[in-house]
C-alpha cells in the first residue's frame, strides 16, 4: 500500500506513520523509491559528486589524472599572492557593481514607462519589442558586440567617424584602459530579459487605485517613482539584483569569447581564471580552490543581500 500524503484525515498527521517500524515503512514505499531512483542517481553522480570533488581536490595538486597529492591550504595561500587573481577579483568587483546598477536601472525605467502608457495595446507591443533580442543566441550577443568594437570596421568607430568624431576611434577591446568598460557595455541598450520581466511583473501588481489616488493628490512622475513604485517593488528589484550578481560572477563566456582575459590579464575574471587553470594549465586543484572561493563569495553575498532587503522591508 502506498501512503498518500493528503488522504490521511487532517489532525491525524503522522499517526498512521508511527504505527509501523521504519524498515516496514521503507519496504512499503519501495515503488516510490524506485520512481525516484533515476533523478537521485543523476543528481548524486553529476551534481553532488563533482561538488564534493571540488571541495576535496582544492586541497590537492591534481592534473585531472594520475598526479594527485595533498598540499593542504596551499592553493588558497597562493591565491592571496597571485597577481592575476588579484586583477581578476578587482575586475570582477567593478564589473559586477556596474552591471548590477545598469541591469536594474535600465529595465526599471523601461518597465516604468511601459506601464505608464494609457494605451494597453502599445504597452503590450513595447513589452514584446524589448523582450525580442532574447531570440538571438547568447553567443551572438557577444559576437555582434565584438563586431561593434572592431577596430577596423566596427559599428562604434564607423559611427564616430560618421558624426565627425573620427579622432576618438579606438581599439576598444585591445587597450587595457578601455577593455573593461567596453565589456561592461556589451549588450548595452538591450534590456536583460529576465530582470526586465521580473521588474515589470512587480510594477504590474501595484493596484491601479494607488496610482490614481496619488495622481489626484498631485504626485508627479518622480514623486510617484520614489514614494510608491520603488518601495512597492523592492522585492523584485532585490531579486533582479541578486540574479545579475550571480550570473555575472559565475558566467565567463562573455570574457572568453570577447577577449579571453586579454590584453595581458587586463580583463581577467576569477571564473575565467578557473577555466584556464583547469583546461589550459591542467591545474585542477587550483581551479577547484578558485571555485570554492567563488561559491563562498556568492553564497554570502546572496545571504547579505536577502538580509539587507528583509531588514529594510521590516523598517
Amino acid at each position, binding site marked *: 500500500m*502506498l501512503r498518500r500524503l493528503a488522504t490521511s484525515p487532517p489532525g491525524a498527521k503522522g499517526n498512521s506513520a508511527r504505527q509501523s517500524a521504519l524498515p516496514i515503512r521503507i519496504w512499503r514505499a519501495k515503488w516510490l*523509491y524506485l520512481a525516484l531512483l533515476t533523478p*537521485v542517481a543523476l543528481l548524486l553522480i*553529476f551534481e553532488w559528486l563533482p561538488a564534493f570533488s571540488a571541495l576535496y581536490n582544492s586541497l590537492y595538486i591534481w592534473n*585531472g589524472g594520475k598526479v594527485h597529492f595533498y598540499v593542504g591550504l596551499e592553493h588558497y595561500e597562493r591565491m592571496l599572492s597571485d597577481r592575476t587573481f588579484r586583477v581578476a577579483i578587482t575586475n570582477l568587483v567593478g564589473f559586477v557593481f556596474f552591471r548590477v546598477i545598469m541591469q536594474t536601472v535600465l529595465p526599471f525605467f523601461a518597465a516604468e514607462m511601459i506601464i505608464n502608457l494609457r494605451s494597453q495595446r502599445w504597452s503590450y507591443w513595447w513589452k514584446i519589442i524589448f523582450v*525580442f533580442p532574447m531570440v538571438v543566441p547568447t*553567443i551572438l550577443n557577444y559576437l555582434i558586440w565584438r563586431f561593434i568594437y572592431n577596430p577596423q570596421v566596427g559599428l562604434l568607430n564607423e559611427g564616430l567617424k560618421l558624426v565627425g568624431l573620427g579622432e576618438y576611434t579606438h581599439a576598444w577591446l585591445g587597450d587595457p584602459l578601455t577593455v573593461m568598460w567596453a565589456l561592461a557595455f556589451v549588450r548595452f541598450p538591450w534590456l536583460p530579459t529576465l530582470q526586465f520581466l521580473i521588474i515589470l511583473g512587480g510594477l504590474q501588481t501595484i493596484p491601479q487605485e494607488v496610482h490614481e489616488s496619488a495622481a489626484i493628490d498631485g504626485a508627479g512622475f518622480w514623486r510617484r517613482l520614489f514614494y510608491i513604485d520603488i518601495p512597492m517593488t523592492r522585492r523584485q528589484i532585490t531579486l533582479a539584483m541578486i540574479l545579475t550578481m550571480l550570473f555575472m560572477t559565475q558566467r565567463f563566456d562573455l570574457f572568453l569569447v570577447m577577449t579571453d582575459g586579454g590584453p595581458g590579464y587586463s580583463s581577467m575574471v576569477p571564473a575565467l581564471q578557473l577555466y584556464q587553470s583547469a583546461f589550459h594549465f591542467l591545474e585542477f586543484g587550483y581551479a577547484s580552490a578558485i571555485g570554492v572561493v567563488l561559491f563562498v563569495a556568492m553564497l554570502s553575498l546572496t545571504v547579505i543581500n536577502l538580509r539587507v532587503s528583509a531588514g529594510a522591508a521590516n523598517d
Partner: protein
Amino acid sequence: MLTRKRLRLGNRDLPFQLVLFAFGIVTFFPLVLVVITSFKSNTQFYHNFWLPELPLHLGNYRSAFRIIWRFILNSVIYSGSTICLIAAIASVAGYVFARFRFPFKTVLFLGFITLIMVPGVLTLAPRFVLVRDLGMVNTPFALISVWVSGGLVLSTWLMRSYFESLPQELFDAAYVDGAAEWQVFLYVSVPLARPMIATVAMTTLIGTWNDLIWPLVTITDKSQMPLALGLMQFSSDFETDWGTLFAGYVISSIPLLCVFAVAMRQFISGLTSGSIKA
C-alpha cells in the same frame, strides 16, 4: 476639474512614447545592420558601411546554411532530448514528493533543492574529469546527462509545487472511480500540469540552447557541436567574410524566433515563473 485632468492625462503618453521609440531604435539598430550586411559582398560592405546596396548577395545565405544547419540540427536533438527527459523525470519526481509520505522524504528533497545554491562554475572542472573518465567526451551523452541533472533541480521543485496546488477532491474522485495510481498520474495529473510542463520546457530550452562552456570543454568534434559552440567555431573560420558571417548569425536566430512567435506567452511566463518562485 476631473475632466480637465483626464484630458491632460490623455496626451501624457506622448513623452513616454518618444523615449520608448528612441530606445526601440537603438535596440534594433545593431540587428538591422547585421541583416543588411548579411546581403552584401565584402566589397560592398567596405565601400558602404551603413546602407543596403544592390545586388543582394543571397549566396551568403547559401554558404552559411551549408555549415550552420548541422549545428542547428545537433542543438535541436540535444535540447529536445534534454527537454523530454527532464519533463518526464521531473513530473514523476515532483508527483512523488507532492503526493506521498515516506521515510527520508525531507532528506531526499533537500538533496534536490540545496543544489540550487551550488554554482556551475564550482563543479565545472571536477565534472569534466568525471565525464571524461566515464568515456562520454565527444558524445551527446556528455551534454544531455549533465543538462538533465542540472535542470532537474529547479524543475522538480516547480512540478512539486504545481502538483501540491491541485485540489485533493480531484484525486479522490479518480480513486473512487477505481483508477490506479499510475492512471491518476498519467491521465489526471499530467494533463492538468501542462502549463507547468511548458514552463519547464521553455526554461530548459533557453538554458541548453545558449550553453557554451560545457560543450566547449566536452565536444571537440565539429560534426557533434551544438549551435552555440558551432557559432564560435564558425565566427573564427569566417572572420573577415562579413556577409557570410552575418548570414550565419541571421540563420541561427531563426529557430528561437519561431518558438517565440508560436509560444510567446509561454516563453515569457516560462522565464519569469521559474525565478520568481525561487
